[in-house]
């Protein structure tokens, strides 16, 4: 098991380096530099800026000095936000995005799993059909539709929440709901399809034959198997949720990390782009690994496969 874990981590290293390298050269291939502003700066200033940040060196030199800094965990200064280093920005903004993401993840899991299982248990009745149609609706309401609608109803009409901002704990409710809905809908679908696929298995019939109640069969026997697709979906979902969402953070004016994914690329803020890409890729790699380990915890067959 531990050997499997270490092997996977080691396998991830070249992937990570490949991603970092590809993005490093891609951003520099894009026309326009980090200091192109609406008001053009004088050539002397530009030269001084480029010199100060080491952008006048050859691409190769820049790449190796970037790798050297990276190995010390330093991502360098942001070109857009003078005086701030990328490390500082990431640390500050990631905290907000993490809080929002964790709330959203918990909501998505709670809503998704209960709706999914309920619609599987009741799949023969009208309620089950309605539930699964409802979860499909969650996929069709993108966050930039759902967010404004929630604000319109709950903040502007009912005055139950603040429309924007990130100050009081109650400010987290609407954005995390908005962020969670899509993932909740996916989880519900995966859980439902997983559970329905299991109902025709032999062990389910055996459990019924032994006199187990419907609730017991679903919660004790089926749940553990039906949850597996959800667990493998959790890896990418968690990475996407925890690194923040541009749309939700923009709509609700939340000072999180998600906005930097977009703004850094638009501003050609090279160091910031690298920071965002690295944090996202690292999250994907880590959470995929975590969800694989969870999968092994749920399914002993996978666990024995891993320890080989």
């Amino acid at each position, binding site marked *: 098991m531990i050997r499997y874990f270490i092997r996977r981590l080691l396998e991830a290293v070249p992937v990570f380096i490949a991603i970092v390298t590809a993005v490093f050269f891609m951003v520099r291939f894009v026309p326009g530099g980090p200091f192109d502003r609406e008001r053009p700066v004088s050539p002397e200033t530009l030269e001084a800026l480029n010199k100060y940040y080491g952008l006048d060196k050859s691409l190769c030199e820049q790449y190796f000095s970037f790798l050297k800094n990276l190995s010390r965990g330093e991502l360098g200064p942001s070109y857009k936000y003078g005086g701030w280093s990328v490390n500082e920005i990431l640390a500050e903004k990631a905290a907000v995005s993490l809080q929002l993401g964790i709330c959203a993840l918990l909501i998505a899991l709670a809503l998704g799993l209960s709706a999914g299982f309920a619609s599987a248990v009741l799949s023969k009745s009208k309620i089950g059909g309605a539930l699964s149609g409802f979860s499909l609706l969650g996929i*069709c*309401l993108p966050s930039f*539709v759902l967010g*404004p609608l929630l604000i319109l109803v709950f903040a502007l009409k009912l005055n139950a929440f603040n429309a924007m901002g990130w100050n009081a704990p109650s400010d987290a409710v609407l954005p995390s709901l908005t962020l969670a809905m899509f993932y909740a809908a996916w989880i519900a679908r995966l859980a439902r399809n997983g559970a329905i696929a299991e109902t025709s298995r032999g062990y389910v019939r055996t459990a019924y034959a032994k006199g187990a109640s419907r609730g017991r069969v679903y919660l004790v026997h089926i749940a553990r198997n039906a949850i597996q697709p959800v667990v493998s979906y959790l890896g990418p979902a968690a990475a996407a949720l925890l690194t923040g969402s541009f749309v939700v953070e923009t709509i609700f004016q939340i000072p999180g990390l998600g906005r930097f994914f977009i703004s850094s690329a638009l501003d050609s803020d090279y160091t910031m782009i690298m920071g965002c890409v690295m944090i996202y890729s690292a999250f994907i790699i880590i959470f*995929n690994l975590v969800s694989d380990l969870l999968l092994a915890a749920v399914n002993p067959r996978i666990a024995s496969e891993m320890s080989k």
Partner: protein
Amino acid sequence: MKTWCKSAETAFSSALRNISRDKTTFACAAFLVLSVAICFCAPVLAPYPYDEQNLAMGCAAPSAEHLFGTDMLGRDILSRILYGGRISFAVGLLATGVAMLIGVSYGLVSGMAGGRIDALMMRFVDTVYSLPFTIFVILLMLAFGRSIWLIFVAIGAVEWLTMARIVRGATLDLKSRQFVEAAVALGQSKTNIMLRHILPNAAGPILVCAALTVPSVMLLEAFLSFLGLGVQAPLPSWGSLVKDGAEYMEDAPWMLVFPAFFFSLTLYALNRIGEALSGSLK
């Protein structure tokens, strides 16, 4: 050529049968066909041109003159929804085409090659999967300038990964079947086997994946429009309409509600059909 037509035809006809069986799914399909037809006839059907401004009528509520109201510049929302639908559907279909083209050929080659090449090609897919795609798309847009054609290609270039995985899986499965072995024994070339024996038999999964790619492509286009990287104003797309609507929702909720309604309904219909198709495969 005969085999090709037959197995692909089976996939299509069983798909059609499945759509027509369930009432809701049938209604979804009818809605989609109708809205695609109406949106593509927008120049004839729309009551106003999409960019005709009437500042005196800015943010007017729905009325007989403007069924869905007007936006901040006095443009008719209904007309803009029709024209926007044209763009959103066009992006949805064409970008899915691009994604299919890349994904199917990549998956076929990877599955057919097998061994080391297959492992390497799939590792590449995994790597691209773990890139934050928004940054990737934005960089593409910045590198090549904004044009509607680039939107198709950029979205297609992001969305082909799932297709590649599915086609590769199907290829691996089909490769070990007897009819492929027979074709090998008969001395058919690899290309021939790939195109005439494996591809038509993978039509089912490809169809399902394509059907589910259309809504996610439309969503991605709307997201790009939300970022301001989509179609150029004053040309509307559903994404940019929703974005404008969200900005003015306090004073003019109809600017948000009507485009959002049609967009969500379309996504729902597409997903529902995709689901029915994948159900028919089992």
